[in-house]
């Protein structure tokens, strides 16, 4: 009886370990990619800030009070408690939507020559990776039909509606929002990854 239980638990572990290890590998890849994107975003932002005059900087600080990121419509956990309360799937889907929301605007990210061009394809790759992760986990397929409808309207119009002299502010906001969103995705993915891995020190 005991041995049967033991056997069963071992078997279940064995069975479940395979997708977990695969998922872990995918997670690791996704996490590293989003980390890289976040670093890129940070660099862009700091470059942009350093290129500003101090007067402009002060103005921008004031302006940024009216935060408006294009991804604000995506409801995402904003503290640890909420994050840990969310399921892996929810975290993944939120990450997916965040990444997707930046696919288009990232092309207009100013700030240096090369990084801008790399960001959009990297985002696409990351999006694909997250999709894989979603599909790998259970109940993955259900979430998708409705999410695709939400993408286009908000940001597309928003950034084009601003006038020319506000381009500086727009760039600043764009970069700041991008940086923040990337960090969000990074955190969610890391938490999700750690949630899936059995060992305690999952951040290794």
């Amino acid at each position, binding site marked *: 009886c005991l041995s049967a239980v033991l056997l069963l638990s071992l078997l279940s572990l064995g069975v479940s370990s395979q997708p977990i290890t695969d998922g872990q590998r995918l997670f690791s890849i996704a996490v590293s990619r989003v980390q890289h994107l976040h670093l890129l975003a940070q660099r862009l932002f700091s470059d942009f800030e350093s290129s500003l005059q101090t007067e402009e900087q002060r103005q921008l600080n004031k302006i940024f009070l009216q935060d408006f990121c294009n991804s604000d419509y995506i409801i995402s956990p*904003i503290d*640890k408690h909420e994050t840990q309360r969310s399921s892996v799937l929810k975290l993944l889907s939120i990450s997916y939507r965040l990444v997707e929301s930046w696919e288009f605007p990232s092309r207009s990210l100013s700030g240096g020559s090369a990084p801008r061009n790399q960001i959009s394809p990297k985002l696409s790759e990351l999006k694909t990776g997250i999709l894989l992760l979603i599909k790998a986990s259970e109940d993955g397929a259900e979430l998708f039909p409705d999410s695709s409808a939400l993408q286009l309207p908000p940001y597309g119009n928003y950034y084009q509606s601003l006038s020319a002299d506000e381009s500086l502010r727009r760039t600043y906001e764009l970069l700041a929002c991008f940086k923040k969103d990337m960090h969000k995705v990074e*955190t969610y993915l890391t938490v999700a990854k750690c949630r899936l891995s059995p060992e305690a020190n*999952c*951040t290794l």
Partner: protein
Amino acid sequence: MMKKAVELVLLLLLLFFTPHIMGKRYSPPGKPTLTRCRSPEKETFTCWWEPGSDGGLPTTHALYYRKESSERVYECPDYHTAGENSCFFNKNDTSIWVNYNITVVATNTLGSAFSDPVDVDVVYIVKPNPPEKQTVTIMEDKGWPFLRVSWEPPQKADTRSGWITLIYELRVKLEEENEWEMHLAGHQKTFNIFSLRSGGKYLVEVRCKPDHGFWSEWSSTSYIKVPDYFHREKSVWILLTIFSAFIFLILTWLLHMNSRSLKNCILPPVPGPKIKGFDNQLLKNGKSDEIFSALMVSNFPPTTSSNYEDLLVEYLEVYVPVEQELMQEESKDLHGGCLKCERSTSDSDSGRGSCDSHTLLMDKCGETKEEGRHTDRASSRMLTEAQRHQKGWEKDTLTYAHGDMVSPDMSNGRVKTWPSVFSPLPQYSSNPLDKQSSLEMAKQHCLSTSSCLTQPGHSTKEALGPSNWDFCLGNKQPHLLHPQTQVGRQLQAHSEVNISNIGRKQAPAGLQSPALRSTEYVEVQRVNEEDLVLLQPVVSGCGRIEGYPQMPKGKDYSKVKGVDSDNMLLLQREVMEEDWCPGVDQEINGGTGNCYTSSTVNTTQKPTACIHTAMPVQGDMALAMNGYVDTATMCTLPTC
């Protein structure tokens, strides 16, 4: 009385007002400033501010904040947890990825002052606590110790759930040092430190940092002392020293034993001459006649040929049979002593070298051979001979200023290039301009000495491959008189000059012409109206010059430039081409009666006069048996 009252009033007034004027003044508070905000674990955060002047009145500070995209203003929930002038935001009040706009207000009875607002995003202000539970232990790896440092992340930081990712860094130093050695440990919580000094005392500290945030403070120091393992090192050194000393002794002993053979190996002795029939001792004794008599061949050179019409050939057929002849030719030397060489087959160590040896005297030159019959075309051989001859001259206390002549690789007997004619005279520099003068000089010398060295001309790649011979007539020409030096020298110079001239020009051509003229020795016997010139060396011991009377092919050697008293004729050849023919091309092959000098010679030569050619072969040994001249083809000296 009135005055006193007024004074009193004034005094009172003063007393009343001075505190106001000179004493404390109350004012609204100064502007406070937010110094920093920090979050230790990305769940809570604290902000500190610096108050401004309080204006003399009790001032209170309040912190107000706004979250992004919301106009509602909140006040700091906790002013005390974090200490003085601080505000602590607990978990419930902290939102990540939300921009906080924080302002501090200082208020007193007279007014209030607002600080500059500060935007804070908790994510970017994380500074964790230092790592905890740090341990350092000594472990051994194959006898060599190392330190193992391990630690735990700060308690508050939630790395387990992945909420925070930390990287660690540690630093080590010896107690007496000032510089810390930094090591980045990444995500891991243990680290090994190697290369320890035995008996040293080490200090270790660790700190951590979230992936986007600030470094924590250094943890508390851990001390560790490394045990001694010095004795083990010492014994190794002792062994090593003894071993090396032993080896050194052995080597010295070996060297001593084999010193002689080593010396032979490194500094081999110079080989002496090995000529068949040549007796070193005899030479040392100084009787040259006896020496060379031993080397002489009775029949050589053939002087009995009465029918020198045979010798009068329109052209010389020259073909290079094979190595043998080459070797044979190479062995020939202009000196009499070289005759032996001619016969001797190539000797591995002394073949031509012996011929080149300085022991051969100039005036013991071998008889010149008739050249017509020789079908050896190896001009290189001739060159070699010439060189040997020259060297023989050299023996005669000639000082050679080695021009920049092409240095022939005579080493192996094949003079590929024009022999590096050592210009015996200093003025025989490599200057081509000197050529003419030098040639003239040489000519003089030749004339004076009446023994000429016919140098094998070096044929070029021309199909004809003539070897050009320089030879000078050993006739003294009054108008050509120049300061006479030693016979040999003059001749040498002349020949050398010629050679040099030729060679210089020819050298770049890569004188490797296969179709070289045979080393043919021509002996000028007599003169006839047919422009047969008999050249006699003035001084015995020089090579005889034999020349052909005339180049049938348009070469006009019939002009006699002059005759000296000793029946030495100086023939002058008409200048056919613009350039001088360094040698008379005896090889009448194909009938190009021009100077079959190297094409390069032709092209590069400056237009100079013709060269005198000593011509045709004579059979008789009119000339004394001196150094013979190899005249396969004779080159005329440019004297025109």
